[in-house]
């Protein structure tokens, strides 16, 4: 293939991630995060929802590795509990973005025409709004809450994904093998599945990985200003909000949820960069 879209076979991509120490570490971190999210209740050192009002704002100790919060709850356990939302939230928003951006991008890239120009204009329009402002506007319609916030973020992400898919599809569709497949009568569905999708998987994967990190940040922002996760559920963003309210009592409490968030975003970014390099895409400058 001549274009930058060298095919992204899962094994090839995984091997290239694991070859580099930085991205291997990042990958390991995400695996641990997934384990925490799934196995949460089995590995909490304490019940994250049990309050111990006699032991508020305790410092880090062997019983409470990261101390306790304003209700005397164990911070380490709450970080683990909140890791569930750190996994679910980006999955929902990127899923919504894919659901909108992928089919439209494929259609626009292959067929052009009205769908292309209308979707392209709409994409320009949505992209002219700052992500958080657009998300705020959509949350204003749907009402606050985690799922609504994540859908809002997904809608805001979809134009970016649409553009990536459209661009990649157009460049693959120009390749001779696609032309020959169509010429010998390959039905559109088959052309899409067999020829187009595997060849746009690489740029798509890069974009999706990076968006996971961004989604986590936007979710945390929305939860921090009270429009995302609602109590008693905990996300790292809502934990930060609580920690911030009590910052005068315990300045350290803003550190653990923040570090968890930074490391997760860093892991997604590192993996995204590494896939981009592995499949020979140029970094966007």
């Amino acid at each position, binding site marked *: 293939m001549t274009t930058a879209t060298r095919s992204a076979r899962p094994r090839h991509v995984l091997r290239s991630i694991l070859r580099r120490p930085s991205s291997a570490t990042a990958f390991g971190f995400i695996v641990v995060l997934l384990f925490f999210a799934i196995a949460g209740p089995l590995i909490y050192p304490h019940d994250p929802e049990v309050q111990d009002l006699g032991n508020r704002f305790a410092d880090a100790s062997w019983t409470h590795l990261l101390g306790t919060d304003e209700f005397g709850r164990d911070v380490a356990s709450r970080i683990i509990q909140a890791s569930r939302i750190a996994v679910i939230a980006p999955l929902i928003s990127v899923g919504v973005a894919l659901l909108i951006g992928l089919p439209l991008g494929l259609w626009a890239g292959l067929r052009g025409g009205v769908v292309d120009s209308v979707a392209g*204009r*709409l994409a*320009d*329009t*949505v992209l*002219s*709004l*700052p*992500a*958080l*402002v*657009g998300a*705020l*506007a959509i*949350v*204003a*319609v*749907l009402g*606050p809450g985690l799922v609504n916030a994540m859908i809002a973020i997904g809608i805001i992400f979809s134009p970016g994904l649409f553009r990536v898919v459209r661009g990649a599809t157009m460049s693959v569709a120009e390749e001779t093998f696609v032309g020959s497949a169509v010429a010998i009568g390959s039905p559109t569905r088959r052309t899409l599945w067999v020829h187009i999708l595997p060849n746009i998987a690489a740029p798509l994967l890069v974009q999706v990985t990076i968006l996971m*990190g961004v989604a986590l*940040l936007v979710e*945390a*922002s929305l939860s*921090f*200003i*009270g*429009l995302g996760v609602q109590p008693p559920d905990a996300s790292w963003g809502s934990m*930060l909000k609580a*920690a*911030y309210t009590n*910052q*005068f009592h315990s*300045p*350290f409490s*803003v*550190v653990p949820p*923040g570090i968890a*968030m*930074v490391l997760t*975003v*860093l892991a997604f*970014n*590192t993996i995204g960069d590494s896939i981009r390099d592995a499949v020979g895409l140029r970094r966007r*400058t």
Partner: protein
Amino acid sequence: MSPGSAHSSFHVRWTEVAVSAGMVIRRLGGGLLVLWLVSILTFLLVQLIPGDPAEVIAGENATVAEVARIRAELGLDKPVLERYFEWFSGVIQGDLGNSLFTNRSVADTIIEAAPPTVVITLASIMIAVVLGVTVGVFAGLTQGSWVDRTVSTFATLGIAMPSFWLAMVLVSVFALANPWLPATGYVDFSEGFWEWSSYVILPATALGVATAAELARHTRGCVADVLTRPYVRTARARGASGTWLVRRHIVRNAAIPVVTVLGLQAGRLLGGVIVVEAVFGISGLGSLAINAVLQRNYPMIQGYVLFSAVIVVAINLIVDLAYGWINPKVRTA
């Protein structure tokens, strides 16, 4: 110079002017089209509320009269198209409607809330440009050294760090642990420069660091690229000094990533400032937007969304024009 060549260069300049004027008009038209589409989407926001918008906005405990008042206020009893045209003709005259709660003009409320937000955003851009470009040029000039590696590490971290978390950490260190700077609030410039800047510096830094990190990365890449160019190698071979190289070739070329990154980061800054303001308890556009969403004050939300879109479109236009100014090759694009 022969008269002929003078004539032709004059000629070329005129076509160039025509081309760039054409580009300005085209870009302006594109921007206006986007803004018009944004106006349709913002108008539709109220339309998309599940159920009866007036009842949803009024809340569960509202009286029938209150619901009726909101319905009339939003003109919900009229057909959609008629309502859009009424609303839109107001918008182009700068009338964004009235707040559902205070009954004050949305446009006035936005303009009153804007100063702290504008100041903090501009200050964060300044911090980002100074910090990002300096650090990026150093890293680019010393590729592979420990300086370069440290800069790369910090840049990667800075990009992954949410600005509102950085804001909290800064408050912890510079306001709570050491009482050097105020932890919350904002004062007007009329209170004196030092007083004013003591309130601006922490929020602006928190907001600007990620942009600085992004700028440092791009500037580094650009400097590294410029250093491989033949004209720089020639200049070096001729014995040109490092400072001269930096001034003559590198700073000029670094203007391009600065413009690119600022264009790309405009949206992130405008979104980020909402949350950073919340951390510092500053009542600017951020708190206006958050309250509008919590109270379902739709005219205010619509006004705010339109206002943000106008700013982003304007910044993109400026960025496009700046490209043409920095690099004449782009003018025809």
